[in-house]
């Protein structure tokens, strides 16, 4: 699996952030990691990261249900950033469950290709990361 410059993990649950980071750390695929507990905090940290590195993290794991700014709202915002179209950033949406009437139209609308259900399984997550980088965005 290719090495990723930076991973951004966004989840309001400390446990879910810990689990995701633990999987990535064991697989040794990322050079650095940023964490945030909601979309708003993540956007702030992304701005700081952009100022320092002039690029976006290559991988974003974002929870769907979060306070202040949920996963859909965050994805919408990040896709509006000027750096996004040229970046290699892959986004994986994490969720404990989906409401077919409410969530599925938003998944289509936001062109979200990669979704994983919690609880995370190490191999499932690593396979999805691998797959997302093999596919064209």
């Amino acid at each position, binding site marked *: 699996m290719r090495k990723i410059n930076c991973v951004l993990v966004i989840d309001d649950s400390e446990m879910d952030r810990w689990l995701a980071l633990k999987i990535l750390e064991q697989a040794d695929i990322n050079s650095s990691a940023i964490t945030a507990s909601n979309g708003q905090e993540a956007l702030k940290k992304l701005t700081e990261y952009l100022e320092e590195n002039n690029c976006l993290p290559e991988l974003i794991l974002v929870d769907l249900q979060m306070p202040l700014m949920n996963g859909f709202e965050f994805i919408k915002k990040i896709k509006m950033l000027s750096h996004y179209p040229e970046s290699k950033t892959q986004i994986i949406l994490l969720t404990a469950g989906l409401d077919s009437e409410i969530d599925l139209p938003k998944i289509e609308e936001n062109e979200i290709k990669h979704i994983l259900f919690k*609880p995370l*399984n*190490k191999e499932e997550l690593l396979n999805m990361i691998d797959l997302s980088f093999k596919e064209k965005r």
Partner: protein
Amino acid sequence: MKEQENSENQKNVTLSHDVVLALEDLFQFSSPRQLRISLMEIFFSHLCNTKLEEYKPEIKNIAADFYFLLKFLEEAEMYEKEKDI
């Protein structure tokens, strides 16, 4: 028949032995946070780390139950913190 049952029971005990030992160690701790962190380590080592070929529906169900217990403990911890503030 009896022997077969015993052998199946023995197999179950052997399969869960590591988890039982880990849980026995775990209950030596007194702090709820430490307890939760240790449970998270057990969850990671014994469920999250399961190879996909062995990640059968019954293991997935156990993982989901364990995960929701951990979520409950996390929320209870946050509630206690808020109450203290």
